Structure formats: C-alpha cells, structure tokens
C-alpha cells in the first residue's frame, strides 16, 4: 500500500553542469548556473521558486552553517521554505524527500534543490575529516583516518566475511567507465579493464585509485512541484513514488555491523512508501564514491542477498542488459563527483526516465531508484522515481 503522498509530487526540471574543471570559479557561481539550468528545463523562472534546499558546508562548497540562506541570498530569492539538511553526499537525495513532504503539506509549491562544489580546484585547502579532534573525534582523528580509508575498512571486512574479491569491486568501476564512454561530459571516457583497476596504485588497501570516484568542479540542480501543477506544465513529470532516509554512524568505531549500512533502513522505507519491491526497479543510480559503496548498496537495498554483491557485479548484472543497470552516465566513478554526488544521481535518474541521458540510454525504463550515501558510510537516503 503506497503512502498517501506517493506520486503527489514530481520532478519537472533537472540540470547537470557540463563543467569538470573550473579553476578560479567560486562554487556559488556554479550553484547559480545549475539553478538557472534546472528552472529553464522546467519552463519556470526564479520568481516561481518558493522553496530552496542545498548543502554547501564542505570547504570546496564555499559556505558554512548558513549555506541555504547564503545561496538564497546569492540567487536573489526569499523562499518561504528551506532545507539545509547536511548529511554528506546523501544530502541532495534527502532534500528531495523533504521537499515532497513540504509540497504535499502545502508549505511550498516549487522547490529548487541545488548543489555545486569545486572539489578539484578549490584553492583554500580541504582536509576530508568529518569531525573535529575534540568530543568523539578525539578518539578517532588523532589516528589519521581519511575518507577512502574508512571505506577501505568496510571493504576489507566484507572480503573477510563473504569472500568478496578485488576483482568483484573492480567490475563496478569497469561498468561505470563503460557507461561514461558514451557521455561527452564525463571526466574519463577511455574504457578500463579489471586488470587496469587492480594495476592502479593502492590508496588504502584494498581500494585502488580506480576504485575511487573522480574529483571535479561541477554541480547539479532539480525542481519539484505538485503533480497537479506538473501536469499543467509542458514538461514530462517524473513522479516521486517513494522515499526513505536513515542515519548510521560517523565514527568508524561505531559502525555495527561493519558489512551493512543505513541503506537497509532507508531502502526499506522507500519501497514501503512506494508500495514496490526491488524487482520492480528498472534501473538505479547508486552512490559510487567508491566501488565498495555500490556493492554494499546492492545488498542493503535488496537487489541481491547480503554477501552476494560481488558476484552480482562480476556476473555483469549492472550492465545495461543486466538485472539492474546502474550509473548510466558513468556515475561518480567516471563522470562527475564534485563532492555530493546525490544531486547528480537524481538528475541522471530523471534524464534516464525521460530518455535524455547523456550516457547509456536504456529501453524505456519506467522506474528508477536513486541512492545517496554520505560521510563514511554514515548516512543514507533513497528515492524511488517513476513515469
């Protein structure tokens, strides 16, 4: 039984910046580019926006705790509804779910979700710690964690418990690169093999350089409105059918168990609210900060059993002809990852359902799942879309 809001709100505009390198450009300028692009795609103007959501507190995003207010000011608007939920790369997916609730409750009619960062060119320094060395962080930061290392810890335990191999993880990177080869804007388009991934330098064992996402200067945005409003507009609405989010841990010592994530909870709620099952999903945009991020999501979101993610990937099930085509624009692993991939994952899901993906175009998919994962496997947001 779907939630009463399932299908009541639609995404009516989406835009991804074609930039991948923008030295000397402040990320706020890319925020404005993306806001304008998404509104133009929707056939709306900035004056129509009455709700704004963004997260921009990472160093390379240019704001701090007042991010959503700063971006509203920069855009020159005064929204009556705002969301600055700041849960890492999952944040823009979370914003989409919160916007659905706000629109369904009548608190806003047109919500703009924007995102931009200069992850590559930011000149002012960008350490990747999630916390400070005081409070809980005093028991973790002095040991020198890095973002990739925290994911490597999860990959290592998954290998130990389930026999997952480096080749299984590499298969995910290989598929994303194959999808990127069709995308003229992708950061990297030259095909890679499993051996290429294994031959790339280890950054934090067992993760190699090609197990890690690209780092770009870019952004993306999308626009949501009520289904009633959407049907009066000229664009093809992409309906929000389900949504769920969940918080895991931030300190790695608190991750329990180490081979499952908050995606199990966010996914369960997304399926429940959509009244759907995993086998009714035609394609997915799964957060791919690292290959292990995708593998854990495949299992936690019910596309295969716990421990079977490696076999699922190695068997080619993630390819356009497989059981679950993913990351059809090349994903964060090959196309674009300025900082919070979630925004771009939503944009690509919308494009795929409209038949306008710049990467691999699937044969008329009707449903898409978007999965955001933030921090160090910390936070999770899952969206189910349909046309």
């Amino acid at each position, binding site marked *: 039984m779907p939630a009463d809001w399932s299908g009541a709100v639609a995404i009516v505009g989406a835009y991804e910046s074609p930039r991948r390198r923008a030295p000397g450009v402040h990320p706020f300028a890319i925020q404005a580019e993306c806001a304008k692009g998404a509104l133009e795609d929707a056939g709306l103007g900035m004056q129509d926006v009455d709700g704004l959501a963004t997260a921009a507190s990472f160093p390379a995003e240019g704001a701090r705790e007042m991010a959503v207010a700063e971006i509203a000011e920069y855009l020159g608007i005064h929204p009556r509804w705002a969301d600055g939920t700041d849960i890492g790369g999952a944040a823009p997916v979370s914003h989409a779910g919160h916007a659905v609730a706000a629109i369904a409750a009548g608190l806003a009619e047109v919500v703009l979700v924007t995102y931009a960062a200069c992850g590559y060119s930011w000149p002012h320094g960008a*350490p990747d710690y999630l916390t400070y*060395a005081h409070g809980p962080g005093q*028991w973790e*930061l002095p*040991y*020198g964690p890095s973002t990739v290392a925290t994911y490597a810890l999860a990959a290592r335990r998954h290998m130990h418990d389930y026999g997952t191999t480096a080749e299984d993880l590499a298969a995910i990177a290989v598929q994303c690169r194959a999808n990127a080869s069709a995308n003229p804007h992708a950061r990297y388009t030259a095909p890679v093999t499993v051996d290429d991934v294994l031959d790339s330098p280890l950054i934090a*064992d067992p993760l190699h350089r090609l197990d890690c996402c690209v780092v770009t200067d870019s952004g993306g945005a999308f626009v949501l409105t009520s289904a009633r409003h959407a049907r009066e507009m000229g664009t093809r609405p992409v309906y929000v059918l389900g949504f769920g989010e969940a918080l895991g841990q931030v*300190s790695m010592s608190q991750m329990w168990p180490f081979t499952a994530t908050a995606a199990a909870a966010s996914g369960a709620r997304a399926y429940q609210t959509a009244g759907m099952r995993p086998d009714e999903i035609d394609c997915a945009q799964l957060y791919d900060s690292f290959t292990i991020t995708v593998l854990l999501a495949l299992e936690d979101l019910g596309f295969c059993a716990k421990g079977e993610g490696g076999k699922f990937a190695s068997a080619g099930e993630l390819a356009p002809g497989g059981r679950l085509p993913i990351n059809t624009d090349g994903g964060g692993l090959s196309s674009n990852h300025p900082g919070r991939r979630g925004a771009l994952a939503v944009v690509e899901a919308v494009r795929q359902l409209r038949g306008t993906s710049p990467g691999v175009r699937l044969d008329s998919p009707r449903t898409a799942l978007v999965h955001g994962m933030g921090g160090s496997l910390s936070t999770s947001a899952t969206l189910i879309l349909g046309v």
Partner: protein
Amino acid sequence: MPGTLARAPGLPPLTDDFSQPYWDAARQGTLLIQRCRTCRRYQFYPRAHCAHCFADDPEWTPASGRGRIHTWTVIRRTPNAEFAADCPYVLAIIELDEGPRMTARIVGESDGIACDRRVRAVFARAGETAVLPDFCLDRG
C-alpha cells in the same frame, strides 16, 4: 612514559574535563574504557552517559588491552597534510575482549596482519605531549 614508539604530532586529541582521565591513563600505559553502573555493559568511545541504557555517569575501568582486529587498511596516500609524512600506516578497528570497538593504528611488525588476528595495546607518543593507545600483533 611507557613504550618507545613515537610519531609526528598529527592532530593531537583536544581533551576536556571529562576525557582527561583517559588521556592521563594512556600516559601511564593504561587503556581505560567505560562500564555502565546500571546495565553493567562496556562502551567505547567514552561518553557522559551509557549509550546502551542512557543511564548517567558510567565508570572508567581499565581494559585488558587485548582484542582482535575487526578490520584494517594501509593508508598509502592521504589528502590530510597532518598525516602525510606517516604514510604508509595501518589504520584498524579493534574489537576489545570486553566487547566495544575502537579505532587505532597497528604499529610494529605487520606481517601476517588479518581480520580477527589477536592484538595487544601499546602506547605511542604523538608529538611532544599526546600518548595514544595503539595495538601490535600479539605473537605471544
């Protein structure tokens, strides 16, 4: 000061009144964890309350310093300048024999490192002031 291990200061722990006993004990070669006075369960990292039953004021207790490697990685490159000179180094999650897990480094000889391998606590000086509980493979 126990132990002879030393490394660059990195990011020293920024202590507070509550955490000071932990860091003072580390300087004396003791790993402290917490035990709830109400539900009697152990916890790490230390907090002002029990994260199992939310009772106030869990008590400090010395840990055995023994445990297993739950998982580990070798950090070969890092974007974080404070630790760049330490590369490569082994970051691990240790499951203490008392139950809780903690983040630490594996120091010393790492041949044969593996998940579930037994380890024991050692104490490493980081910079001039901090002493951090670390672990080494238990070959005894």
